[in-house]
């Protein structure tokens, strides 16, 4: 089982619509087609050291995807802010991670809009 993390903490799965799985090694060009879909896009992270999903998320948002975007995999709480900044709405973590890093550690990074140097440079 897994836990959905949002800015206000842990949630159970609450999405009932279609889901499109996007693997970390998906070629960015392929994303153009899914960016128009109404499905939840679930970008897979094989491990926390593989950051390709962050770049894919940013590309999807740049291509106009406005639907629900989820990072799924064993990310760590420190990465929550970066996931949000890259365009993810939420992070789906395995139960084992949720036990090791309980809710307060994720909520501590819900302030992801603060201290973002890229945002400062973008204006």
């Amino acid at each position, binding site marked *: 089982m897994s836990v959905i993390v949002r800015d206000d903490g842990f949630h159970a799965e609450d999405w009932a619509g279609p889901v499109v799985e996007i693997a970390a*090694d998906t070629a*960015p060009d392929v994303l153009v087609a899914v960016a128009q879909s109404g499905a939840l896009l679930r970008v897979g992270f094989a491990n926390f050291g*593989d*950051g*390709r999903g*962050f*770049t894919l998320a*940013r*590309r999807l948002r*740049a291509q106009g995807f406005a639907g629900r975007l989820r990072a799924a995999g064993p990310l760590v709480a420190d990465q929550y802010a970066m996931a949000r900044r890259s365009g993810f709405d939420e992070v789906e973590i395995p139960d084992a991670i949720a036990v090791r890093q309980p809710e307060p550690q994720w909520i501590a990074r819900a302030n992801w809009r603060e201290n973002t140097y890229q945002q*400062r*440079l*973008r*204006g």
Partner: protein
Amino acid sequence: MAAYNLAGRRDNKYKARLKITVFEGGLEAFRDAVEAEFARTRAAFSGVDQALLAEIEAAFAPPALPLRDAGAYHAAWAADADFRAFATQNVVAHKVPGYGIVTVSLKAHGATPGDATAAQMRKLADLADAYSAGELRISHEQNVILPHVALADLPALHRALAAAGLGTANAGLISDIIACPGMDYCALATARSIPVAQELATHFKALGLEQEIGQIKIKISGCINACGHHHVGHIGILGLDRAGVENYQITLGGDATERAAIGEKTGPGFAYDEIVPAIERILRAYLALRQAPEETFIETFRRLGAAPFKAALYDEGARDAA
């Protein structure tokens, strides 16, 4: 970042490096990916970054460097041989008259290249405040630079550095070696680097040949990742692992300046206990071959090529005698 993030190797963390991505995929392909990413990213920037840049530039305004009486400098120069050695070897001219750029050598003979203690670092920070307009830089040569020192202050600075064990007058000489951490600290290493640097420094000091040999850049890496940039050292030493035994490959003629060149491999490598005598053979050949003491090692190499150095290096008779 985004271009590399997508293209970099994920199957082997030792190969998760930008230079490997560029080597495998080609420079053109990677450059195109970066340009495409840049075009995409650029739209998100409104231009406020230019205002931030201007703010940063203002913070790096050059310091006021008033002309000072250099009497103390001349007096110390006349009276103190250690000071003369330091001022000759470790100070280069500043664009502002009456000032110098000081290299604080972290290459005391036999010490770990590039190491400083906490007390030495605090001392350096204080000295930068007192004598270098509050500025201090770390150089890729693994030394510390004090960029704005009035010559008038140089004797006092030299005394303070010497008292802190930081007065070694060897910038640019054979003991000023760049060495990567190697087997002593690095998980990727195939051979030791630091002890080779230490032995070279103490060996040539004991021979009394350091000044005689003059300007030379020896660089040492403990594996093919080349963090010590051995391939652009005048003499490069690359530590490899041959069936569980350290083996050191020598390159000659590398150059990291505007005359950039990759060093040439000389041939078979040397065991750990053979590497210092091997370097000595090369340098004795240089001393015999140079046209004048002013002709540096790299200039002699450029004039003659690798052949006479290789001959000296692999001369069996000389090897037995060494």
